[in-house]
């Protein structure tokens, strides 16, 4: 139970800081800021929580239990950061599902869905986001990849091609 208490305290405090920070001012590079906040903040808060456990008269955590807490913070952070991609940018698939749900029992026609998609310029928004993040360069009417390697994207493509052996398709 002490592991749960320590993990819950650290994540709860970090989430409160995250909400306060984001409401006061959005960081320019939101996902890297989240990683720094949750992983760095976890390291900073661990001694504070350890002191709290001691002050409350509870049994101190062993080094293995602290590793378990670290794994919990890491797992939650990774899960939250990938979820955050869907928070900062709307998912076309999830948006479509919600639009169809609004249609109720009568359903939704392709025309209505086309109208819905036209009101949401996903591609233009993604291009702008990629330029803002520094991944794309726009010179005149053409787009180029920036010089620095985008490790996450490379990993995703490598995994898809060589581990899952899936064809390159989708939309």
């Amino acid at each position: 139970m002490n592991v749960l208490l320590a993990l819950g305290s650290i994540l709860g405090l970090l989430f409160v800081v995250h909400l306060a920070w984001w409401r006061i001012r959005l960081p320019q590079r939101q996902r890297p800021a989240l990683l720094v906040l949750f992983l760095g903040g976890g390291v900073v808060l661990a001694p504070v929580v350890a002191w709290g456990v001691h002050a409350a008269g509870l049994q101190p955590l062993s080094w293995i239990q602290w590793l378990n807490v670290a794994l919990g913070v890491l797992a939650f952070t990774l899960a939250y950061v990938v979820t955050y991609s869907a928070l900062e940018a709307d998912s076309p698939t999830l948006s479509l599902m919600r639009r169809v749900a609004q249609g109720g029992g009568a359903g939704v026609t392709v025309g209505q869905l086309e109208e819905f998609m036209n009101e949401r310029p996903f591609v233009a928004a993604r291009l702008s986001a990629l330029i803002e993040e520094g991944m794309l360069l726009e010179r005149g009417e053409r787009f180029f990849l920036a010089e620095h390697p985008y490790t996450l994207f490379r990993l995703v493509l490598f995994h898809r091609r060589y581990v899952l052996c899936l064809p390159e398709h989708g939309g």
Partner: protein
Amino acid sequence: MADDMQMEIFQLLHLAAPIFALAVMCLVHSIWCRRSPEIPGLNALAGSGLAGMAALGAVQLALLALGQPWREVIVASLWIDAPIYGCLAYGYANFVNLGQSSVRIRIYRELLAAGANGLSGDFLRGEYDEATMLRVRLSRLVSAGDLLDDSGAYKLGRRRLLLIGNCVFGLKKIVLGRHTEFSS
């Protein structure tokens, strides 16, 4: 002394359980995708996620067999091991899904293939226009059973993606104070 060592073994097994379960999930998913690429992506992920959950359960049974009291096993598995595995599995599922449906990754792939010449804005906008995105997504959602094509009218099939969508859009409202990036 023996009790301390036994306690450390229990703690180590609880620490390793979610990692082992994730490894099983990744392995099963990889085998599934290689052997049956026609299976909808979400189904393969859900199936391999269940395989990982079974592996997590197997570790808990091993802990019981090694003598950890069943109350401790239940509390640790329900409140710590399973949520940590859930987060890891969710992260893996999103990582896989990025390669399938992320517009950003697909644009990146096109530009990587284009090399030093880059690509024109007209080409990218034409290749990834909203009509194409709609067509590909409708086809994928219908084949996975998430939508039903009822003579030209699309209706809800399975509600799992709607549930995820409602959670994501609700969280967006809490964190960012808005429901959609396109709201003014």
